């Protein structure tokens, strides 16, 4: 009788196949067909929502300006640029604290999905020079970003959103 003898080689082969399958399943993240082969949505960053001010008004500039917050907004999956998306920006700047009302402002993306908002110089607070950005509208899932400036001397900072339809 030729019974099935399990060899170490079999165990290794089976094990690596299982590990490979687990790796593929684990790293693909959201296994939603629409996004499976496209651009993945941007996850909210830890601490991103701190001192968020719901409904901050759209402004042409926050305070005196001199610093530029820039970025793009695209749709998850196909990566299409999203125009008219409202992005709120806030930070601790030379003109105010992060939780000050006047440190907040919002802007809309252009036809190319690009946004640009002038604001006062960001200064290090809580150990890092960082900004906050939020998308909190309808149609897409809410995303909060908290990018850190490579250098406190930088006069611009950019952050990019890939939004997932709600």
């Amino acid at each position, binding site marked *: 009788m030729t019974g099935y003898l399990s060899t170490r080689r079999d165990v290794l082969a089976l094990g690596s196949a299982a590990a490979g399958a687990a790796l593929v399943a684990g790293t693909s993240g959201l296994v939603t067909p629409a996004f499976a082969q496209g651009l993945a949505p941007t996850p909210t*960053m*830890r*601490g*991103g*929502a*701190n*001192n968020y001010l719901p409904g901050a008004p759209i402004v042409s500039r926050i305070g005196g300006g001199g610093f530029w917050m820039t970025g793009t907004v695209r749709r998850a999956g196909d990566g299409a640029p999203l125009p008219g998306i409202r992005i709120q920006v806030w930070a*601790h*700047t*030379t003109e105010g*604290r*992060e*939780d000050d009302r006047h440190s907040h402002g919002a802007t809309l993306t252009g036809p190319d999905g690009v946004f640009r908002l002038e604001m006062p110089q960001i*200064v*290090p*607070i*809580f*150990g*890092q*020079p960082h900004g906050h950005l939020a998308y909190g509208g309808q149609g897409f899932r809410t995303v909060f970003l*908290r990018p850190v400036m490579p250098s*406190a001397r930088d006069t611009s900072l950019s952050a990019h959103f890939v939004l997932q339809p709600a």
Partner: protein
Amino acid sequence: MASFRAWLIWAGLGLAIALPVAIAATSPLLAWRDPVYIASGFAGMLALGLLLVQPLLAGGYLPGLPVGPGRLVHRWAGLVLVAMVVSHVLGLWLTSAPDVIDALLFDSPTPFSVWGVVAMWATFAAALLATLRGRLHIPPRVWRVGHTGLAVVIVVGSVVHALLVEGSMGVVSKAVFCLLVLVATAKLVADLRAWTLLARRRSAAASQSGQP
């Protein structure tokens, strides 16, 4: 001659602590900060400064303060250290509560906050151990290993926390001061040979049973 040496040591210690604080006081960042946040930062710096004083007191290394009186001052300095740590965290809380809540819950995006929070809890634990030592009749061996172990956690946690923070302190003066804290702590731990107490327990028990 001896008094001149003593004077030199005290002056050096004073300068070592005062210089980084003085440099921080000239930081342009202070112009864009509230008094509460500035006070919070300096409370943190003074707490860091005490971390140099504490091992020197505990080891009886300072002139005029041998181990006995040194440890009495060490106890009071420990109380001030706890007060400074509490002031530091409280000031940060008043400046931006959500950031402090994230840090305390170990959910902060900034890696340095974890080191700071661990050092904070170790500070409280070391102080609590010192307070309850007599009341709970904590054996000397447990006390020595526990308090020294917590002190090492406090020092390492605080030094990493301070070095990773981009704040009002000068980069060089901060690094040099942190090095002094590490050296003083290492010297004390080496002199106390606290870790041998862990091994000595077994050999002491063995030799005791062999004694008549």
